[in-house]
């Protein structure tokens, strides 16, 4: 048995394709990106070494700070919303709708499979105000709530909220499904025992179900961190970073810096900072789990 499992040739054969492709097209490019952060200009044309200048520039860059805050808003509202509301909906499904749970799950997961471009295009029509009222505004009109009618995606005070909410709508299903699976795996006898002991439903949820859900919760938080910090499609297609710079998240800022302003070094720097941020946050969360788990 051991010999079979130690078959070096087989191991090589199994690992090589994935490792090769991954190293060549993911790992190596990432190293190159980090390498680029110490340069400025256009590769192959006028790249020059500038040391840590790009990183210094970051500290003084007002635009970077603004984009950072915008990304944080998205992270908290949408990322946080995904986890908290995802859990809430999963709980609702578990305790409120046992009979149609499959149908419900199917419908709730539906927005997840829609392409981001399509969702953004769809919602830009839903939120439209001129030349004709889109779905939301015409419904407001119908209900006699004209004072709320406005250009939702063109107004700097509401634009970012729209991006957050639409992506929230789109992503909740993903986390709900994961949480629901975790919930289903909670042994019912524990709950029964607690109930017999006189605990109310909410207490049962708080004291028994949630703690048992911790591994799943951690996984969802990690996924939410990654997906929310990487956001790109929605703010680009729905509002194109505007109005002004109110929806310019870090990824958009990075893309525009590198590809429109010819500052590849600085653009790579922003990307690397974002990468570090993701790593730090996810590591922190996973360490937190490992501390009281096991």
């Amino acid at each position, binding site marked *: 048995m051991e010999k079979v499992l130690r078959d070096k040739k087989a191991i090589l054969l199994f690992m090589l394709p994935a490792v090769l*492709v991954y190293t060549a097209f993911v790992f190596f490019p*990432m190293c190159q990106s980090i390498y680029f952060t110490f340069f400025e200009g256009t590769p192959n044309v006028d790249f020059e070494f500038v040391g840590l200048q790009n990183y210094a520039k970051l500290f003084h860059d007002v635009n970077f700070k603004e984009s950072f805050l915008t990304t944080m808003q998205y992270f908290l509202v949408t990322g946080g919303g995904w986890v908290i509301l995802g859990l809430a909906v999963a709980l609702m499904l578990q305790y409120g709708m046992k009979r149609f749970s499959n149908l419900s799950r199917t419908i709730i997961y539906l927005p997840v499979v829609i392409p981001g471009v399509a969702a953004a295009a769809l919602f830009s029509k839903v939120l439209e105000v001129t030349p004709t009222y889109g779905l939301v505004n015409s419904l407001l009109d119908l209900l006699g709530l004209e004072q709320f009618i406005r250009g939702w995606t063109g107004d700097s005070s509401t634009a970012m909220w729209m991006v957050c909410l639409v992506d929230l709508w789109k992503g909740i299903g993903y986390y709900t499904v994961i949480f629901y699976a975790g919930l289903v795996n909670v042994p019912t006898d524990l709950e029964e025992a607690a109930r017999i002991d006189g605990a109310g439903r909410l207490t049962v949820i708080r004291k028994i179900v949630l703690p048992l859900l911790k591994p799943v919760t951690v996984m969802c938080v990690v996924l939410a961190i990654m997906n929310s910090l990487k956001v790109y499609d929605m703010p680009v297609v729905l509002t194109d970073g505007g109005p002004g710079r109110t929806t310019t998240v870090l990824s958009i800022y990075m893309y525009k810096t590198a590809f429109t302003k010819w500052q590849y070094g600085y653009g790579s720097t922003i990307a690397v900072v974002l990468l570090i941020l993701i790593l730090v946050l996810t590591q922190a969360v996973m360490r937190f789990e490992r501390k009281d788990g096991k």
Partner: protein
Amino acid sequence: MAKLGRGVLKFLLVILLVIDLYPIIWLLLSSFKKEAEFIKPMYMLPEGLHWQNYSVAISQAHLGTLFKNTVIVTCTSIVFVWLFSATAAFAVTKMKWRWSKMMLHYITMGMFIPAFVLLLPQFLLLQKTHLLNSLAGLIVIFISTSIPMSFYLLTGFYKYLPDEILEAAVMDGCDIYRCFVKIAIPLSLNGAVTVIMLAFVNIWNDLLISQTFVSSNTNKLLQVGLASFIDDRGNRDWGPTFATICAAVLPTLALYLVLNRKIIDGLSAGAVKG
């Protein structure tokens, strides 16, 4: 009292389902509206089935070409993604060698890397290998960026594959390859479906990568074509615009509706065990 609580929950859930479904249904209905109907309030039902929107969309957005390209790229990629990830995940979880743990972390780390960090270096690389602006180049990029996540999910599945079954097989005289093909794969079909579906959705829906690496009209993918079509005519021809969006959404939707039990089960299983 409990009944009331139940009722409230049901009610909230129904509202949620409506919020989830209504925009999509509205999209579908609107794609059948004639141009003139859009002046009327948006929530009205279409007056008839104006199929012309779809034919206009097909001819002007070149939906045929876009579809063909996207199907080729997506299907080829998911096959290789699954194949490469499955073999690697198997080697890392079931086989015994010194670097297995390191390899696990090495590949899983890729999940955290955002796509745009890699854009420029990948572009330069594709250019050197003359794969730029080609479907093959896209396939290579998609395969490499989808591997980490698939790999991670599959390791979760394989970990729960009982070793005893493998031992029994070996004792019956199977070599490692037969073990893999005849045992590991059939027992992890759930995982395979999950991984394939996840990769399919990510690749089919992708915008950033397909936009950056392919420039010519003949090799464009669906989402990029959709984005430029909307930009071009989105404000004028609402009907065809909605039809195009529908066309871009339907395949994933259909696939999802057909396989949804398996997918959700797979996703859940992977999440819980992983």
